[in-house]
């Protein structure tokens, strides 16, 4: 059952990436290290690597530190407010990186909202240049990756028994102590998982530094793009890819050594998590640090005016709520501000002037845009179906059967998430070029399926784990043959889960730029590619119109997915 998936990954992940890596050591005259000599000859490339690491590290820190309170609040509030909070996080999560980065260009521009606001407040007298520096890249990166950090930490926090901090309180722990000694250690696997997910994604980013950064914020993936698009130097692109892969590998190795990779899938709830591998003096130091943090927070809490009277101890503090809403506003507002701008006739300056549908007409009458929309829908649906078709049987296999080396298989299936997307994209481009698949929808569907299928497998595995197999046994005992059992019992119950993993795959493809960057162009372009081509040429209100459409489309998609999920839950 897992054969199609293995075949897909071998052909369109292992083979292309392997090819690319081989190209880095094979020149026209056989084995050569020339590419690597060039790589280390000057400090240029290492500097880029250092900048990449610096940007990724700071992004990770900011995302985890600001994401933690958001995830915490979502995990403790009642159902209704949770749905609201989660909607905004998910909306941001699913809004294209491109749309969000573009929104920040507009927002931070000379005549953008921020400059206008600062001038009207009298803080500055003339527009400051807020774009194309480290700060703007950081803002863009954090905006892009904060939702990922929140969702990763949330999956762990939701599994923490809410009675534990309460138990600590009855045992004599003050709030600060209860948090640092009980809640925080239990949430650490989530923090670690969020940290590594954000870091690895950040390392492979190119959209944000390309759009919001200056020359000094060039990241390593941008170098790979340059090598492929401008000089067609496959060998050197391969050498940079090796360097990037090497860094990612080291990060994962360090993570595994410290915490164990099994904590990463989030499947390991803290309840079952192995005791931390930190042992002996390190653990003692950690424990002492937490005790100290607890004591300090309780000291600070005591200084605050007592508001405990009549307050439910379970309720989150006003300060926390305010912080979370401000953060959600910051990550959602840029895209929302695109909406009025897209109807304005005065360009992208704030405040919007007049009302016109001109930009929407421009977009809809342009064959480039309409073709791109159709193309993206086609590729998205194709990817969704193919990923389902290939991923679901594999998930069945992993959950239901006792194959050997399950962990290794899972790691293999999840590898498309871990390997930087750019490396997959360049490798695929190389292989597709020789197979004549460049520019074809089919090739693109294959490529997108490679990166979407891990999500399908994870989602379906979660769904299958919750599925009560006794229902199948019941059906069989009532006389249903295996196929009838699948048709009348298993699939109807799994339908909602399958639908949501289809949507996940669809959305992944619909928003995918990296693979589409090389494999498409002109009238073959997908929507993200067309968006990218436009936005790198000029920043026009037409793009704001497209952003608005994309934003609303994604909002509707999340809404539908949520409705489906709830209907499934209500059954």
């Amino acid at each position: 059952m897992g054969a199609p998936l293995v075949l897909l990954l071998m052909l369109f992940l292992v083979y292309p990436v392997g090819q690319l890596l081989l190209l880095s050591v094979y020149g026209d005259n056989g084995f050569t290290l020339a590419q690597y000599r060039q790589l280390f000859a000057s400090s240029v490339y290492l500097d880029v690597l250092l900048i990449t690491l610096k940007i990724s590290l700071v992004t990770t820190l900011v995302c985890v530190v600001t994401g933690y309170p958001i995830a915490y609040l979502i995990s403790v509030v009642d159902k209704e407010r949770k749905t609201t909070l989660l909607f905004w996080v998910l909306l941001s999560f699913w809004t294209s990186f491109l749309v969000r980065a573009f929104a920040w260009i507009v927002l931070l521009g000379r005549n953008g909202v921020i400059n206008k606001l600062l001038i009207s407040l009298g803080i500055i007298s003339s527009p400051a240049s807020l774009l194309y520096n480290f700060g703007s890249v950081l803002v863009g990166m954090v905006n892009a990756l904060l939702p990922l950090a929140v969702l990763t930490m949330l999956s762990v926090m939701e599994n923490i028994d809410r009675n534990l901090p309460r138990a600590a309180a009855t045992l004599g722990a003050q709030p600060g102590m209860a948090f640092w000694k009980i809640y925080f250690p239990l949430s650490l696997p989530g923090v670690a998982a969020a940290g590594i997910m954000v870091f690895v994604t950040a390392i492979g980013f190119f959209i944000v530094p390309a759009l919001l950064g200056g020359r000094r914020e060039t990241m390593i993936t941008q170098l790979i793009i340059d090598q492929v698009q401008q000089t067609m130097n496959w060998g050197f692109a391969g050498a940079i890819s090796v360097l990037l892969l090497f860094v990612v590998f080291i990060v994962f190795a360090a993570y595994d050594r410290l915490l164990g990779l099994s904590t990463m899938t989030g499947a390991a709830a803290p309840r079952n998590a192995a005791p931390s591998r930190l042992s002996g003096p390190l653990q003692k130091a950690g424990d002492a640090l937490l005790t100290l943090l607890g004591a300090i927070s309780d000291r600070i809490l005591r200084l605050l005016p007592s508001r405990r009277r009549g307050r439910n101890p379970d309720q989150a503090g006003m300060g926390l709520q305010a912080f979370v809403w401000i953060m959600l506003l910051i990550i959602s507002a840029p895209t929302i501000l695109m909406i009025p701008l897209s109807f304005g006739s005065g360009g992208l300056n704030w405040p919007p002037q007049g009302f016109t549908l001109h930009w929407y007409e421009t977009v809809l009458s342009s064959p480039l845009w309409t073709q791109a929309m159709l193309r993206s829908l086609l590729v998205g649906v194709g990817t969704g179906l193919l990923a389902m078709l290939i991923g679901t049987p594999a998930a069945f296999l992993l959950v239901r059967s006792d194959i050997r080396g399950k962990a290794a298989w899972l790691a293999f299936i999840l590898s498309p998430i871990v390997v930087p997307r750019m490396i997959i994209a360049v490798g695929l481009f190389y292989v597709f070029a020789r197979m004549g698949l460049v520019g074809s929808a089919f090739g693109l569907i294959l490529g997108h399926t490679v990166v979407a299928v891990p999500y399908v497998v994870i989602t379906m595995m979660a769904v299958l784990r919750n599925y009560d197999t006794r229902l199948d046994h019941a059906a069989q005992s009532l006389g249903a043959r295996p196929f009838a059992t699948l048709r009348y019992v298993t699939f109807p119950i799994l339908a909602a889960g399958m639908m949501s993993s289809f949507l996940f795959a669809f959305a992944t493809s619909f928003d995918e730029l990296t693979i589409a960057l090389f494999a498409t162009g002109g009238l073959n372009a997908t929507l993200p590619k067309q968006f990218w081509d436009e936005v790198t040429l000029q920043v026009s209100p037409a793009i704001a119109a497209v952003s608005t459409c994309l934003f609303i489309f994604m909002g509707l998609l999340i809404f539908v997915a949520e409705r489906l999920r709830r209907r499934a839950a209500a059954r």
Partner: protein
Amino acid sequence: MVSSSLRIHELCKRYGDFVALAPTSLDVAKGEFLTLLGPSGSGKTTLLSLIAGLAHPDEGRILIDDADVTHSPAYDRDIGVVFQNYALFPHMTIEDNIAFPLKMRKVADAEARRRTAEALETVRLPHVAKRYPRELSGGQQQRIALARCIVYRPAIILMDEPLGALDKKLRDQMQLEIKRIHRELGTTIVYVTHDQEEAMTMSDRICLMNAGAIEQLGTPADLYFRPRSVFVADFLGESNLLSATVRGVDGDGLDIVLAAQAAPSRAVGNGGSFAAGEPIKVMVRPQNLVVGDAGGGGQLAGRLSGRLLDVMISGSLTRLYIAPETAGMPQLVAAHPTRSGAAPYEIGQLLSLGWHAADAVAIRDGKGI
């Protein structure tokens, strides 16, 4: 051993329009074992959370040893709580779990170690100190939760359905264990359960709750033999409830007439005040229903006849289900100790039923007193 009294005065908790706990007053004496019993949603867990300081009341006061703790945070109350699912900290060893409250109280390390070992001795699990909670069985986790609670000698221990997740045999064993620890430590215990048998076995007094208020408070025998409302009679054990009308009152005895029957009968007044002409319910416990062949039972206070519908043997008791001949009277159940040999009666046989006046308890019709 330390032990405190607990006084609750007009305590009240609402969630929006929903009254989780109507103004309620309750006194628990030093060293008493009091059970809060009731169906789910009756307010017993709400009351427990309020006492523990895990929820805040809208009105009323909580006093421990006459000191007002209504607004004290949970960590200042010196109350121990054993949670329903134990709430053992999964990232700490058993030893660290038990030592946690001592650490919070800044007890010196050596002393903490000694007391931890002692607590593990008390719950008879000295060998699991270095293990993690998930490595223990449900029953063992339950004991550890208990050990973590008694180790710092709280003046009052609250238990929220602590045995709910255990199977029957283990539950019986743990009931004895908890009673033993209660005897040894002399701590005041407030215990929540929805299991009436558990409440009867363990408690000095039972506080039966219904719809956010106390329905009846008293010893297990009080509640069982002298229920003050139909709800109490129904909730604790099986009962036969018959409609009747009061004819006259003398002392604690009542002259009554069963509905749809002309023959006069007698019932115990149960401390309540009844007036002639008042409609009441009369409760007769199944084991007090005397069954005989038709025509027997001359000296009994109540007398009916009915047909045997079914016989069920459940271990030590045999239950007879009987449909009275009188129209409109509900099906009755009689119980007697199971004896070996053939069943004395046949299904469909006409039987005479009766009870002694002392076993018929008058209850106000409708809600309690």
